[in-house]
């Protein structure tokens, strides 16, 4: 890859948007002319008294990172991993000071009174204004900035005092472009940073392709909408978060395999965790991450039939808390078997810390982080060169220890004079702090690999064997009067131990004169914390691990209906729900998917032929999925003619004449069965969305319905023919077999893959 050309920065993109929208004629703007051209002018200009970019406030989502106006963490829609600059007040830091005395709250275990952080956390969204996180709307810096207020046409740019910005413009700035500018402002208006590489259109990974498409349609007028509706133009796959797409169509939230999360989804999860870490000093605060980790310590159920239901609820309640922070977050799952091949080679007791875990949970450094490390004066020139080298390589390491080794920085310990136990040296701690800051999903007491025979690492066939178990006892464990481990829990136990692993340097503590090092030490324990059910949930990978357990149970439930724990009324403290309440993931609001691709459509325009662009299905998804499914979302049904809908894959020319027999591209056909209207005016209009908690009525008669078609065989056949991407195509036929354009009104089409 040619490295010579510097990629355009986000500020470049902001300028480009505004220049393009303004066009050739630039009005006075009170003498500033194109005030956005120069970053300093942009930040200081007051256009008729309105700050174009509001001064940063203490309460801004990212203002804490803003002393240098550089961005570190993320922005309101999509935190990012590769922040460039570091910051002194790292909320994810492992420990408070380099003096070596403090125990960082993030790794404080049970029974230690935490020390409250020096600065009060203020990142969690709340109902009142002024004290809230970034989602509270009216307090973010962008919401206070005249350029955003003006572009949106809000008061005073609503015509009452000033016209909407930009003035005398060639075109209006689109909503997605405004969002991009707002995010750039909330990120601290960096003059020089890179948009995500995988983002092609505007707002980093967030580029709501659907929005852009819709905005484009508005510009292009009715012609494009018609072209889309009759298949002359391709529908594009949305770049938005899957849960956002699901929310738009009234679908369940999706827990995806962690490698399928896009940059935005991953960023949102990391940002939420980073915020939760800030409350760790408050023991009873349910916004604190450690509060949730301690619940496992105190209440977890293992070795009997409540293991699966208790942990399902544990994840559910934790996920609900994350969704308080950001409703689009769901817990990802860690499909162990994806890593079976590599781990069976490295999973050995003789040499610990060689296992491979999902990339999202690994650690890395950036050059900015190295620059901060350099400022500590703790590292030799050679060590700094090594650190810089790994930062430049962009490599992500499966453990902190491996990162140190690769950089040539020795893992060193010190003796805590107060406890007499080993703690990290300042040099080790400073690197770990940077790792944790850059990736809140990383955890220091984690040495994946080792512990047990390599053959214990589960392969897909092992999971298939689990799924074939025909009864609850063997699969899920026994009741209290006859308790025993279930097979799934046993596999889960092994993976706990794999994820935590063995600390190769545990005995180094003895070199410090510590006669009997504490195996449960907070720093430098004998084993990774994932191996110890007392502290396991402090490691963020715990949640992905248990998501996978829960997923396998859910899949098993589908295969073995009626097989369930003996005591459905069993209470599961601290949860308010019983075992029986935990049986359905759908009732708890989620389902599992390897990945999901959405084509938004224009509701209200009848589709006669639907052409989908290539969905960009990831190679790994094509290789590993178990089932593929095409879904038609929210098909309107009231007073609409019946029709047949034929579904094809990779068949852009499909029409009424395309054969359906012996055509490997043909997925299947569904027929609609609607009724005509019998009520008064607008009886058949779309019902209002349900909004009342106490509305116990069944599904509304005219609520649009969903169709699902199993596309697994079709996908397999096409992949066998060498297809490396998939696209969805629909042909709509009337009952007479002729094309119709007034029978299919939908909110979207999606292509989904399940493990």
């Amino acid at each position, binding site marked *: 890859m040619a490295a010579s050309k510097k990629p355009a920065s986000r500020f470049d993109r902001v300028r480009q948007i505004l220049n393009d929208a303004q066009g050739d004629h630039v009005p006075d703007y009170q003498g500033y002319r194109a005030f956005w051209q120069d970053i300093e002018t942009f930040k200081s200009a007051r256009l008729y008294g309105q700050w174009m970019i509001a001064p940063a406030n203490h309460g801004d989502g990212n203002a804490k990172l803003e002393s240098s106006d550089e961005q570190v963490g993320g922005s309101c829609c999509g935190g990012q991993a590769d922040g460039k600059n570091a910051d002194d007040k790292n909320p994810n830091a492992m420990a408070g000071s380099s003096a070596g005395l403090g125990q960082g709250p993030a790794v404080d275990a049970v029974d230690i009174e935490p020390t409250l952080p020096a600065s009060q956390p203020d990142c969690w969204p709340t109902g009142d204004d002024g004290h809230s996180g970034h989602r509270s709307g009216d307090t973010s810096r962008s919401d206070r900035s005249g350029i955003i207020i003006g572009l949106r046409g809000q008061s*005073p740019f609503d015509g009452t*005092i000033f016209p909407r910005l930009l003035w005398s413009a060639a075109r209006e700035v689109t909503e997605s472009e405004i969002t991009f500018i707002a995010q750039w402002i909330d990120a601290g208006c960096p003059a020089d940073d890179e948009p995500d590489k995988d983002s092609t259109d505007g707002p980093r990974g967030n580029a709501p392709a659907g929005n852009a498409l819709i905005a484009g349609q508005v510009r292009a007028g009715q012609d494009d909408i018609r072209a889309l509706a009759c298949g002359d133009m391709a529908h594009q796959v949305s770049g938005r978060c899957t849960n956002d797409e699901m929310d738009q169509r009234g679908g369940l939230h999706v827990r995806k395999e962690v490698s399928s999360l896009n940059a935005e989804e991953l960023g949102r999860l990391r940002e939420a965790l980073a915020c939760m870490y800030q409350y760790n000093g408050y023991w009873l605060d349910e916004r604190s991450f450690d509060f949730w980790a301690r619940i496992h310590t105190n209440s977890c159920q293992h070795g009997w039939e409540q293991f699966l239901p208790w942990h399902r609820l544990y994840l559910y309640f934790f996920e609900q808390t994350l969704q308080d922070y950001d409703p689009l977050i769901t817990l990802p799952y860690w499909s162990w078997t994806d890593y079976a091949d590599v781990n069976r080679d490295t999973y050995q007791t003789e040499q610990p810390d060689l296992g491979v875990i999902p990339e999202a949970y690994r650690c890395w450094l950036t050059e900015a982080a190295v620059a901060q490390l350099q400022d500590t004066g703790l590292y030799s020139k050679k060590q700094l060169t090594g650190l810089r080298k790994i930062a430049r390589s962009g490599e992500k390491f499966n453990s902190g220890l491996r990162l140190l080794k690769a950089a040539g920085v020795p893992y060193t310990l010190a003796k805590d004079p107060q406890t007499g136990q080993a703690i990290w040296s300042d040099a080790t701690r400073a690197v770990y702090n940077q790792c944790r800051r850059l990736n809140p999903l990383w955890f220091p007491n984690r040495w994946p690999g080792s512990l047990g025979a390599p053959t214990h690492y589960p392969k897909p066939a092992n999971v298939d064997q689990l799924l074939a178990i025909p009864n609850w006892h063997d699969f899920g464990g026994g009741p209290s009067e006859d308790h025993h481990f279930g097979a799934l829990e046993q596999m889960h136990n092994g993976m706990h131990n794999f994820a935590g692993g063995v600390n190769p340097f545990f005995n180094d503590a003895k070199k410090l004169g510590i006669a009997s090092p504490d195996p449960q030490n907070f720093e430098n324990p004998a084993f990774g914390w994932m191996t110890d059910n007392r502290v396991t949930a402090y490691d963020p990978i715990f949640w992905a691990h248990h998501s996978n357990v829960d997923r396998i149970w859910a899949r098993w439930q589908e295969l073995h209906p009626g097989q369930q724990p003996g005591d459905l009324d069993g209470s599961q403290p601290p949860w308010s729900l019983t075992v029986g309440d935990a049986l359905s993931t759908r009732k708890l609001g989620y389902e599992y998917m390897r990945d999901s691709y959405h084509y938004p459509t224009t509701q209200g325009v009848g589709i006669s032929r639907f052409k989908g662009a290539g969905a960009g299905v990831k190679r790994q998804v094509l290789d590993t999925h178990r089932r593929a499914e095409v879904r038609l979302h929210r098909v309107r049904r009231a007073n609409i003619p019946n029709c047949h809908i034929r579904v094809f894959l990779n068949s852009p020319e499909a029409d009424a004449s395309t054969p359906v027999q012996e055509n490997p591209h043909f997925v299947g056909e569904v027929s609609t069965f609607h009724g005509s209207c019998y009520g008064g005016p607008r009886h058949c209009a779309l019902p209002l969305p349900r909004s009342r908690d106490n509305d116990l009525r069944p599904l509304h008669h005219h609520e649009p319905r969903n169709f699902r078609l199993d596309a697994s065989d079709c996908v397999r056949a096409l992949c066998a023919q060498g297809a490396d991407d998939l696209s969805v195509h629909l042909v709509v036929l009337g009952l007479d077999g002729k094309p119709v354009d007034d029978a299919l009104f939908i909110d979207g089409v999606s292509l989904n893959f399940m493990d």
Partner: protein
Amino acid sequence: MTTFKIHPAIGIARLGNSDQFYLAPEQPGALPVECDEQGRETVDDQGRPVRVSSFKEDGDLSKVKRQAARFRVFAYEGANDRDGREIKIGDSFTFTLESNVTGRQRVPGTVTDILWQVHLANKKASWYEFQETDGRHGYSAMHPLRNPTVTQPDQRRQLIIDPGPQSVSLARPQAQFAQGANPGYPQTFPPADIAPNPVTTLGALKVNKQDDYQRLIVLGGHGHSGATGVPVISDFANNDGWFDDISDGPVTARIVYEYEFKFTDANGKPQTQIKTANMTVQVPAWVVVGYPRFVPELPDMVTLDEALYDINVRRFAYQPALFGVPPYTSTGNRPQSEEQWRIWRNDARYNADYYPKYYAEIWPILKRPDTYKYVFDFDLFEGSDPHNTGTGGNLDQKALSQPPMKGEDPNYQHRQFINKILRAPGQENLYRSGAISERDPNYRPRLMPMLSGNNPISNTAPEKFFRLTDTQLFLLKQWADGKFVNECEEWDQDDADCKNPWAEPPTSGEGIDRGVLANLLGGAFCPGGELGWIIINPAIYSAPWRIHHAIYQAGALSLPKPIADIDGSPAANLDAGLEPGDLTKYIGIPWQADFHECTTQNINITFEDWNNIELDSTGDPAPQTVAYDIPWWPAHRPMVVQLADPAGAQVYWSSGLSDNNAGDLQMVSEWNNLGFIKYQTVGSGDDASSGYFQTERNDKALGAPIPPGQRQLGQSNRRKKHV
């Protein structure tokens, strides 16, 4: 739901002794509009209204044409429709059908006609005396009545001129507010023998249809004023025994529409029948008849539009971005209940971040004084031009239009100077400003505007000098501080009309409301021009621009409370709304007296709080008398005007009318012979000269006009209204 409203909210007709008429202008400072005898607007080949070229009948300079008030019905769809659109015959709407049989229904229908009703009356002679500001906040029981000897209620009702209501529609396109023209209504008219001119009508109604728009035309009286016995005038506002034919009253309308009535006949067969019904226009209007506008193109220093805008802004949440409860959004400033209104009125304030538009909100105020040189001589002896708007002038249009640019503000001091010499609230009795210059503490310029106020006459609540409205002063303060936008340079560089937002006739309902009012006097009110201070009393409004209509009985219009209480008949009550005649009853009778006297006022400023100083009283220290002649409203009652030939030559406008009570009486019969002031270009080439010059003066009746300085025949312009 469609809301129907009549526009303008307040229409203005003007007296004339001719049967010919033209239409009221709907833009500030615009000439009236030519029309045919049905009142159909004359348009040129570009569809623009044709302006009047002559205010008098062809060949008869003693016949002043009347100005008609035109009304139209607008439809508003939904709460966010601020502009509305005029309804046409043939338009379809969903109407509310009131039926005794089925209760209220909503039916689709087609407009076939509009049934208008207007009720004009003149209550001046039956009302209280005008006593300057006394009465503005309610009349005491001791407040003198006009015609005080008439105390028997039924006799006093005879002092009201009440021709009764009249209706017109396409089916009956004309009606007269004339004596004998309202069978079955207990009309009251003045005695037939009043002199010099009896009052037998207050005007007439017409409807016309133009491009399928059906419109109402209201015509006022003929300028007839007369008194019982030997007519004499002894006061500028109160003259017992006098009547005039000024009037005002409510304008209501019903939309006549056809709809399909579906029913099942006796045989069970469904039938359809076309039926006609009518629906009341929900928001009615008012019409005021005033005296002629002799200088139609020069707006007053404060127009009635501006005076009411100030009230609407501060009392009715009319423009929350300018005045409201922070953050000044329209959604946050929609009080509904009485309680919410009370809270709003306590909490609302001017928005310090409001940026007025220079050509829409600032320049119209600043440019006016300079134009008054065509109707007044500011500096009789030296001819200086204190309001010059050219380069280097005190009111330099170009320099004052430049907001700070990139933080540079070279005109800051200039704007601040102008703002500092504006008379602020509380300075109504001050002649000079405080020190405005650090270098010269003795430099205390005269406060502006240098015009007479609401009471430079009596010692009760004096307001010697006039000031701009609170809202105008706020806008000017923002401007002086550099908080304004030059909208022509910032937003509308290509728009030739941008420097005059009123260049084209308004098409929105409120645009018409405001454009019409902009040609009425907005102060000072002593008692006033077309209307007195009652018009800026918020209590008379039901909504911005809209007079609150009262319910009243035929032949029993209200009387002042002391008289009404005698027989328990209805007493005037602002809370209950206004009846016909309730707006104009507050101004002088006959109108000619005050009109003639409103030239300048010799205002004594020796003591701030007193207008009248009793020099003859014993024991008081001899006061030092400091008094100045201060003009009233130069654009409404011109004083020194310019001739077209020789162009620019100055003359007294009212030459021929003496400057005393006898002159007031002359005005009663000679007003129609006076000249109008109109923008003209005379001469050609290098000799061409443009300006507002006098035209159509009837020298045959009044003699040749006299230049200033030639003070024979009592042409002193030093005059004082007396108490």
